[in-house]
């Protein structure tokens, strides 16, 4: 289990190989990659700058991973989140969940993303091609997705 905050890009195959090396008990790997889109609220995007809270970011990502390990039977997992200034098409985030069974891997990767989006201290600032710049607003739907997991736990 590992978390990393990085200014440089990641290679999915490389990270996957590292996570699965020597563990032939893994049956399923679910991966999510988030990328910078070329537009934001109908405007053309020039770049996106990601700020984070060093120290808290790592602590929070580790808490999220620990929670995922409690809920799902995982063999290995990884969260990589980039910071700094990125361009459209650039990778932002990588989540990998490896498990003996497909269902655990898929559910864990969704859980990690939903929690990361609502709890990990990252902030996006978008610079548009028209010269304007603004901080991205948090989306209600993201908070809803994370809340649904909380609800799921309560139901059990």
């Amino acid at each position, binding site marked *: 289990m590992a978390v990393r905050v990085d200014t440089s890009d990641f290679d999915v195959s490389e990270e996957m190989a590292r996570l699965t090396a020597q563990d032939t008990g893994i049956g399923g790997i679910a991966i999510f990659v988030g990328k910078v889109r070329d537009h934001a609220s109908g405007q053309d995007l020039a770049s996106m700058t*990601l700020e984070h*809270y060093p120290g*808290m970011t790592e602590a929070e990502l580790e808490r999220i991973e620990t929670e995922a390990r409690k809920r799902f039977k995982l063999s290995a997992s990884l969260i990589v989140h980039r910071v700094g200034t990125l361009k459209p098409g650039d990778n932002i985030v990588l989540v990998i969940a490896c498990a003996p069974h497909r269902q655990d891997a898929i559910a864990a990767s969704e859980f990690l993303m939903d929690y*990361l*989006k609502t709890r*990990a*201290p*990252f*902030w996006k*600032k978008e610079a548009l091609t028209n010269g304007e710049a603004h901080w991205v607003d948090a989306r209600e739907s993201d908070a809803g997705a994370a809340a649904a997991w909380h609800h799921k736990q309560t139901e059990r």
Partner: protein
Amino acid sequence: MTKDAKGPEVTLRYFAWLREKTGTSEERMVLPPEVTTVSDLLRWQATRGHPFDIAFTKTETIRVALDHAHAKSGAPLAGVREIAFFPPVTGG
């Protein structure tokens, strides 16, 4: 209160538009003794004068972390060494 008038120094940190609006990324200070919870602190920030008064007008859009962990408005500040202010997170 029987405790010392002067409490321990804490580090305050500001991120994203809170950093920009306050013009501050980090400061160290002793909080007034009557500021004992997160919500006390948010109210007190708005009384510090420009530019904090503007930055802390709409406190419902401000999140607070105590020693690197998310905190609710009623959370006590006793023993805390680092307090951070930021908007709702938008990573991922």
